[in-house]
């Protein structure tokens, strides 16, 4: 019961934070510098790890499906399997999980420490709403960067699959055949759905992490507790949302 009220409280303050930030959308042009900073942090610094993870995810996917499709003599469809799984599911989810772990945790740590060391209080007394300068630029930046990260993740994942198909002897499919299978069954809608999902996950993750950070109470110890909580809640939200968004976009 207590957990449930905690959940409702957290949900409520995240929604409230969203509305507070939305009120200041008009100030975004003036906050260009902060927005670009956040784009750099969310996008550029996450890119290497997105690349590595997506490459190996694509490779493993090709390897496993090569192994199991062998039995049906359906090896030539590996390309479309890797392609569709990545575009519709794996790309957005992997990118969102990495953003939660790498960016979300950093956001919570920063905002929680600002809260604990009274910097947030100082902003409030200066009549500078934290939602305006701390939350809004991050939400805007994640909306811009998520599709970019997801597209790059997809491309690298597809490429990882192609590499495995070519060089693993038991599969041995040429890249031309792999990519033509990938193209044949892929519709624009599949990629679009994936990008939409990435957008939603990223936005929710950043909102959750900002909200938990700003609601930190107590001393420095609570900073760590908030970060853990933010990452756990983000991961759960991604997977739960994944089911419902996928169903809605089918």
């Amino acid at each position: 019961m207590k957990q449930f009220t905690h959940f409702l409280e957290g949900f409520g303050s995240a929604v409230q934070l969203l509305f507070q930030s939305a009120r200041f959308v008009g100030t975004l042009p003036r906050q260009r510098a902060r927005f670009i900073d956040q784009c750099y942090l969310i996008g550029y610094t996450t890119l290497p790890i997105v690349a590595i993870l997506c490459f190996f995810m694509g490779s493993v996917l090709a390897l496993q499906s090569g192994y199991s499709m062998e039995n049906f003599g359906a090896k030539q469809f590996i390309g479309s399997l890797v392609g569709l799984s990545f575009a519709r599911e794996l790309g957005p989810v992997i990118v969102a999980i990495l953003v939660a772990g790498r960016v979300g945790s950093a956001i919570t740590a920063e905002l929680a420490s600002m809260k604990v060391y009274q910097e947030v209080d100082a902003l409030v007394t200066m009549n500078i709403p934290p939602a305006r300068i701390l939350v809004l630029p991050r939400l805007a930046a994640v909306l811009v960067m998520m599709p970019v990260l997801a597209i790059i993740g997809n491309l690298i994942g597809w490429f990882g699959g192609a590499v495995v198909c070519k060089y693993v002897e038991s599969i041995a499919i040429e890249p031309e055949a792999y990519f033509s299978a990938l193209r044949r069954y892929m519709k624009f809608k599949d990629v679009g759905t994936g990008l939409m999902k990435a957008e939603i996950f990223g936005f929710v993750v950043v909102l959750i992490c900002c909200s938990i950070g700003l609601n930190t109470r107590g001393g420095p110890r609570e900073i760590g507790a908030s970060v853990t909580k933010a990452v756990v809640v983000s991961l759960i939200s991604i997977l739960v949302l994944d089911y419902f968004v996928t169903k809605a976009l089918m």
Partner: protein
Amino acid sequence: MNPPIHRNPITAVESPAVGVTIDGLTKNFGTFQALKNVSFTVEPGEIFVLMGPSGSGKSVLLKHIVGLEAATAGRVLINGQDATAEHTLERIRIALVFQAGALFNSLSVYDNLALYPREHRFGDEATIRDKVMRALQILSLENSAQKFPSELSGGMRKRVAIARALVMEPQLMLYDEPTSELDPVMSATISEIIATLKDEYHVTTIVVSHDRELALGIADRVGILMGGELVFLGPPASLRQPADPRIADFFHPRIDLKNPRFKTLET
């Protein structure tokens, strides 16, 4: 008598100086009573010094004035408006110098000071730069403009916090122990700043301080909190020979080296 006029140093807009009314303020943290039915008023353009032992509720009281804490009972009015109402901070410029400074750790000293004028669009960068540099000069910080808070000493941090409040050009200025970490010369400078702001611009000021010199030197009135209760309210002159033994002990503590307080800890 008409209230004194606060003159905004930038816009030269004149408005009545701000008055603060604390009305039956009570604050509980769980079962602990941090403030017990505290009432007093700070007249427009007045310097009010709030004193009291550590843990007596001074900082908590200041937080109520800027609306960072919500009262359990009673209220704080600033020019007749409730301090917790959102529009109060929008209409009345209040600066609080936090006890711990509360500097923005990710910003340089210069940017700490420039944040407020930039966000509230005081003018172009050159205008803001002038203001920021002048505030830094007043507090002898001009060589630290590019440093970050983590690179400053405790006293320097306090001075940056005061400079940041000066740049806001507030109508109501609240200091939480402005001189606790400063040397005597710098403390005197702070007293001069407080007095000048009052004389020139009629900035209403509340200073929380243990500094007796400062209190007796610049205060128009003094309040003393003990255990969350207001035990004294009056002009500083009447503190020279306080009648209340608690206050006398507070100002003239005796150091008793034979006191067993500490010895009981050694076993």
